[in-house]
Structure formats: C-alpha cells, structure tokens
C-alpha cells in the first residue's frame, strides 16, 4: 500500500533549495546565484519505496517572521498547510546564520530534517563538520547533500520518511533567560484561553512570536478571548528590546554548539572579496557594468550572425519552393506569405535568443547580479528606487513576466509597485528580433551599438519614470535595503546551457503557437475581403492600417507598421512576423524588402525601434502586472503611460535622427 506524504523545502535564501528540489523531483525549475530567485511555491512528486512524496519548494526566508511578499508565502505554507516534514536546507558554509532559522523551526514543533547542502564547498574551504554530533545537539536528523551533483538525495528522502513515522515528536527549544521566560509563561497562560488558536499553533511558539512583535500573530489573536490580557502584557514591555535579547540568546546557543561540531578553517580574504573590491569600486563599478552590457549585446549580435544566415537561407529556400510548386495560389500564399513569411521571420532570431539567454544565465549563476544592485543603489536611491529593484530590472532583459514576479522580494509596498510599473521598459528578449531586423537592415555597421543604445534607453526611461512616479503618484521615502551578496561561482556547464535551452525552446513554442496565430490573423486581414490584391490598401489590414496611420504618421510609420504594432500587443515578436507577412517577402528577404520600401526611412526605423521598446507591455506582462498589483487600474495605467512615452520619444528620436542622417 502506498502512503502519501508531503515535504516542504525551506531555508535561507540562496542556499540551494531549488537545486535540491530539481534533484529530488527531476524538475527543471529555474535556479540562479542570487537571493530571491524562487518567489512562489513549486511542487513536484517523487516515489520512494512505498511512499508517494509531494515535495514543495518554498521561497527563502531568514526567519519565521515574514517581512516581504515572498517570505509571507513561505511562512504561511509552513504554518497553515502543515507539511508532514519540513526539510531545512542549510548552507554548510554558513552554519551560524542558517541554524538561526532552525531554532525557530524547532519552536514550531514540526518534524524537521536538515539537508546540509553545499557540503562539498565547506569541505573545500577546509571546514570539517561532525554531522552526528550536530544532529545530537539539535535533536534533528541531518543528511549531507550536494544538490548540484544529486549527492544524498536518497538518504534525505529516507530520513524524511523516518521522521513522519516517528511520533510523537520531540521538542527542543532555546531557553531565553529568566525575564523573558517569565513573560513567555504569562503570555502562554493568557493565550490558553483561546483554545481555537492553541489548537492550531504551539502555545510557546505563539508567545515567542508575540514577544518578538510579530504583527501577523497578533492578528490571529485579535477577535479571540485572549486579546485583552495579551495586549496588557505586551504594552508593559519593550518588544524591540525583547526581540534583541531573544535573537541574542539564539545566536548564543548556536555559538555554544558550533565549536564542538565544526573545525572551521581560518577565513582569509576570499577570491570573491577580491573581485568585489574591483567590480564594486565607486569609480570602476558603473563603467564595468556598462561594458559588460555592451559586450553582451555585441556578442548576441555577432556570434549569432552566421547561424542567422543559415536559417535565413533555409527559410528563403522554403518560400521559393512553396511559391513555385504549390497550387492553388491562395494555398501558396497562405503557406508562403502567412506561415513561412510570418513565423520564419521570427524563427530567424532563434540564435540571438539562445546566446542572450546563455549570457544572462551566466550572469545570474555567477553572482554578479547582486553586485549590480549594489553598484546601482546610489544612483537609483537618488531617483527614488531601492538598489534591490535593479535585479528585477535585469531579469527583465530576459522576460518581464518573471521579472515582475521577482519584485516580491522587495519589502516596501510602494517600492515594489514602482519597480513593477517601470519594469516593462526593460527591453525583454521578445523585442530583440525587432531591433536585430531593423538595426541590421538600416544600420548594418553599428547594429550592436544601436541595440546597446536601446537597452540603455530602456533603463533610462525606467529610471526617469520612477523619479516621476515618486514625485507624483507614489510619494514617499525609498525603504532602505539589505541584500545578501552570494559568493561568486562559476556556473556549472549544465545549468547555463539548460537555462538557455529551456528559454530557447519556449521561444520556439511561442513561435509555433501565439505568434503563429498572430501572423495568420494578419495574413487573413491582408488577404480579405475576397478579390483584393494581397496586402493592398483595399484589404482589411490596409483599412485598419490606414485608419490608424494618422496616429503614427508623425513618427514616420506607414499603415503596414501600424498593423504590425497592433499585433505586437499580443507578443512583440509578432511585429517582425507581421512585417514579414505584410511585405509578402516571396522573392526577397524581409531585410531587403524593408530597405526597398520608400515609406520607411532609416530615421523612421530608429523611431520604430524606440516605439517597440517602450509602447505597452505585452498581454502576458499586463496579466502579471494585474496579478501582482491586485488591480486592473495599474495594468491599464501601465499600458496608457507606455503608449504616451513611446510616442513622444519615438517622435523625438526619429526627428533627431532625421536631422543628423537625413531622410525623415
């Protein structure tokens, strides 16, 4: 007979919970080397002997008193869903702080198993940890694991299963000294009147959390019979002082144990520190960051070029083949102009997407992202954003949807909202094909620099918008930030390509689904009503385009661009796909068709890139803005604001470019 059990993975941020989760369940959840990669709970399943085990991966947290949105998710799950076993993933290279959370988990009286992760790294830096003794002190089973290699996975599952079977559970808590203990006893006595509450949570844990000033626990007491007495007790003490004393006692208990279980090597200045001296230097930091970004886009462009040429040749051959050999003509048009012209135009950029994500995965895995946040803290603070906001902004270079979710680790509500609203200006990978097509066509010599300029413009607009919002609709102080700097790591040969592949294949699937539908809609609009010339002014596409043309004509765009922009609202790659369809690139590549069009000047192409960078978030991003802000109001605001900013900047850039290079 099989038994179902549920295991929750918890622990400090960036200790390798998700790596372990992937190893346990065979999942491929995203991992990175910065705190706060996981912001929602993820579940997976694994079978071990006669047990069907559900594993839940939780966002990282430093304590059981939640502060930011991701911590609340982790804490609420542990408290209210009551998993059968909690596996605390502990970073073996940072025992002291990790065990602080352990002391709190013990108070919660849930069965705990410790996965002593990154054990190989602790050993490599010369530490020797006596697992058996540590386990005996804590009265918690400990399993040595190395998540990246999958070491200890089976043992961990076995230990978890054993814990489920062992009941009742032992209780091991810290003593907080006479004063605090007396108050805990008073609070516990008062709380015992609320049987409903004490039935759900351990009494001592409730009292401890109240003493620490945990608001959410106080909320649970509100409305119950114990409230008056609890409030009276709490008002007689200084909870800040108590919290400090209790934290002190916890660390004291930990440091009493540690020398007995660990032989720590003397820490010298680590290579991480030496790298940090350079990359976070007050003068060198920002130039280094900009150079890295410029290099990224230069590489994205040049390294992909040969592969692009190959795909382009294949698509071109296919188009010719279809045009030459398929009857009737409408079917040839459907296949050639519609599917191949549209989806083909998007697929050409697959190599760029792969390379961009490979570099982003490398940056994420190396630990540099957290440094970028530190470097940018000064300039961002002056403009009304916390430095921490910079990580979601950089993640936005990949895709704005996970980037907007990553804002959950930002503590201040206003800071978070602000970071969400400016995130769509960070140029996601879906916009890259548009730039590569247009920059490669109109500015072949400077394409890498043009693309770099667009990314920097996106950051500049995001920052300027933050400043504007901060002084108008979201006034207030920037909350100060504290963020862990993970040690630099060389991303393993597996994780970066895997991340690249998962994002790249997502791009292919997108091309085969939403982009395909989008371009087919454009093809249909360009082909009907029956009898009109394909893509002519008389077609539906022509009518819609001409209706909207006056709106975009000042920017130098004609009706074809107007149609492409409308469909780009669904997904920005469709802008390229639609142009591919509308230009009906049967005999020539889209690039030469664009060059040959007198209606599109180089200056207008630049304006178009700026417009695509800034105008409305795509449908998926709008959805996630709605989800994370909890209101359509902000989603709508984001669309309207983006359109206005895009129009103004495209106008300015187009005319400036026209002045300098002519042709606007």
């Amino acid at each position, binding site marked *: 007979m099989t038994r179902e059990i549920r295991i929750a993975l918890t622990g400090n941020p960036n200790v390798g919970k998700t790596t372990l989760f992937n190893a346990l369940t065979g999942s491929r959840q995203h991992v990175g080397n910065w705190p706060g990669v996981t912001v929602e709970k993820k579940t997976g399943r694994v079978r071990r002997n006669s047990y069907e085990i559900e594993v839940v991966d939780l966002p990282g947290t430093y304590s059981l008193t939640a502060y930011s949105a991701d911590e609340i998710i982790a804490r609420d799950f542990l408290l209210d869903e009551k998993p059968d076993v909690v596996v605390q993933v502990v970073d073996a290279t940072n025992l002291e702080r990790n065990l602080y959370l352990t002391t709190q988990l013990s108070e919660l009286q849930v069965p705990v198993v410790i996965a002593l992760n990154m054990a190989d790294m602790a050993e490599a830096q010369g530490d020797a940890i006596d697992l058996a003794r540590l386990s005996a002190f804590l009265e918690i089973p400990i399993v040595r694991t190395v998540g990246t290699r999958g070491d200890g996975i089976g043992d961990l599952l076995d230990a978890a299963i054993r814990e489920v079977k062992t009941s009742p559970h032992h209780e091991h808590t810290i003593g907080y000294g006479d004063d605090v203990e007396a108050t805990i006893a008073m609070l516990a006595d008062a709380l015992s009147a609320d049987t409903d509450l004490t039935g759900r949570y351990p009494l001592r844990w409730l009292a401890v959390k109240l003493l620490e000033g945990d608001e959410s626990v106080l909320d649970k007491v509100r409305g119950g019979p114990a409230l008056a007495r609890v409030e009276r007790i709490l008002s007689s003490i200084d909870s800040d002082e108590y919290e400090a004393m209790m934290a002190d006692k916890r660390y004291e208990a930990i440091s009493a144990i540690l020398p007995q279980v660990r032989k720590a090597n003397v820490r010298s200045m680590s290579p991480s520190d030496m790298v940090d001296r350079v990359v976070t230097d007050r003068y060198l930091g920002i130039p280094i960051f900009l150079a890295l970004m410029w290099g990224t886009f230069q590489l994205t462009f040049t390294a992909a070029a040969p592969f692009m040429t190959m795909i382009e040749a294949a698509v071109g051959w296919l188009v010719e083949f279809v045009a030459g050999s398929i009857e009737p003509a409408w079917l040839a048009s459907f296949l050639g102009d519609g599917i191949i012209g549209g989806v083909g135009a998007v697929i050409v950029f697959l190599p760029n997407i792969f390379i961009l994500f490979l570099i982003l995965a490398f940056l994420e895995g190396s630990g540099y992202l957290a440094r970028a946040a530190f470097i940018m803290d000064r300039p961002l603070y002056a403009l009304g954003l916390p*430095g921490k906001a910079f990580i979601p902004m950089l993640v936005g270079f990949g895709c704005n949807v996970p980037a907007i979710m990553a804002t959950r680790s930002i503590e201040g509500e206003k800071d978070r909202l602000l970071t969400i609203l400016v995130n769509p200006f960070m140029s996601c990978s879906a916009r890259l094909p548009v730039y590569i097509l247009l920059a490669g066509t109109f500015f072949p010599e400077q394409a890498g620099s043009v693309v770099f300029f667009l990314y920097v413009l996106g950051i500049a607009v995001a920052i300027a918008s933050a400043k504007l919002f901060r002084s108008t609709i979201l006034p207030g102080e920037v909350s*100060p930030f*504290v963020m862990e700097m993970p040690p630099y790591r060389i991303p393993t040969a597996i994780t970066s390509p895997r991340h690249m592949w998962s994002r790249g294949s997502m791009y292919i699937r997108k091309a085969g689904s939403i982009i395909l539908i989008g371009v087919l809609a454009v093809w249909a609009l360009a082909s009907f009503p029956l009898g009109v010339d394909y893509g002519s002014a008389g077609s539906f596409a022509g009518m819609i385009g001409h209706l909207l043309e006056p709106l975009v004509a000042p920017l130098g765009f004609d009706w074809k661009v107007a149609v492409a922009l409308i469909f780009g609202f669904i997904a920005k790659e469709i802008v390229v796909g639609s142009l591919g369809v509308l230009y009906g690139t049967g005999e020539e590549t889209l690039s030469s068709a664009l060059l040959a069009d007198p209606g599109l000047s180089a200056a207008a192409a630049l304006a178009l890139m700026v417009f695509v960078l800034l105008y409305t978030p795509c449908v998926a991003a709008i959805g996630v803005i709605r989800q994370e802000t909890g209101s359509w109001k902000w989603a709508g605001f984001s669309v309207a604001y983006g359109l206005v900013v895009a129009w103004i900047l495209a106008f300015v850039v187009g005319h400036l470019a026209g002045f300098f290079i002519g042709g606007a």
Partner: protein
Amino acid sequence: MGDLCPLAFLSAGTEATIAKVRAGKGMQTRLFGMGFCPEARVTVQCADRGSLIVSVGDARYALSRGIAMKILVECAKAVA
C-alpha cells in the same frame, strides 16, 4: 563600552562589534535573522559614501546607507 556610532561611518577594512539595531519592525527581524545581532562582529568590505558591503559571520551583505545608519557599532577609536 565605548561610544556608539552608525555602521555607515566606518571605512573599508574596519571591523567592529554591533551594539544596537534600531531599524523598525520587520526590517529589524530580518536583520537579526541575517546575523546583524548585538555582539556580532562585522567587517566592512567596501564602502561607498554610506552604502556598504559588509561581512557578518560567513555571509556578505550589501546595505544601503539608510540601514547602515540604523545599525550602531562600538567605535573602536572611542574606547580609551
């Protein structure tokens, strides 16, 4: 015990002992969880006009000036 001064005033390479953390509810709990607790030793790795990278125990943290002002340490110099 010597005078107290904010962590933000220390320069790179300095080591100090934390005396008090007064950062407001929530943030204070977070800081304790991170190891910024009275009596903990903290070393300033990098300092840029009040923003710091510090090490506490085996961890490195970036702190904005706002937080670094609220963590008070015992000033080594003031101990006479």
